């Protein structure tokens, strides 16, 4: 069964990002929301860690959070999603695990 993992804490000040990544299964997906979108910042360790994830793991970021923060760029494999997309992701993956 596949899991959509959701993060919202900054990867720089909080340990959830580092704890979550080793637990992502090959069929899983990761949605970055809130301050977790800072993991998309180029030339950072979190950005690098995202790039080295198995290619089958789908990566998403909530568009409003990326745009509000005016992030300059993000890896090509990260798809920006709106709320209807977010809902669709929750239906597609078998379960949703938010790192509260």
């Amino acid at each position: 069964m596949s899991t959509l993992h959701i993060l919202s804490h900054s990867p720089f000040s909080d340990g959830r990002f580092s704890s979550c990544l080793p637990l992502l299964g090959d069929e899983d997906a990761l949605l970055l929301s809130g301050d977790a979108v800072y993991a998309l910042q180029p030339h950072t360790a979190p950005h690098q860690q995202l790039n080295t994830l198995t290619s089958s793991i789908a990566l998403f970021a909530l568009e409003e959070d990326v745009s509000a923060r005016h992030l300059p760029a993000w890896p090509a494999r990260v798809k920006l999603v709106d709320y209807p997309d977010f809902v669709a992701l929750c239906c597609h993956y078998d379960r949703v695990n938010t790192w509260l």
Partner: protein
Amino acid sequence: MKFVIALYAPPQAPSSRRTLRFAEALLAGGHEITRLFLYQDGIYNAASTQVVPQDEVDLSHEWRQFIQRHQLEGVVCIAAALRRGVLDVPEAQRHARTASCLAEGWTLSGLGQLHEAIQQADRLICFGGP
């Protein structure tokens, strides 16, 4: 699909607003919300006493409108609410407290309601943190 939505963060947290936006998209997409469940600091979304500056989002007020508009079941964990000082009228009387502030549309109940909803729904989604 049927969803149970559990919120663990207070109304000031961005995740609370995100929850409401998600819930709106859920219903707009033709899905059902089996239950809304507030736990931990999420219970503050059901308080009626916040005074929010006029140029800011009054999320507790928006939640009330959302629940009423869509006739949803909004449950607040009673244990979490009581220890944080959000009481309804019966609980305020029971514990001899001077005020009750549970907003209309929300009901105090136990964690069993969360488990029951998880059993009934297709998906559980939790929101919390920033």
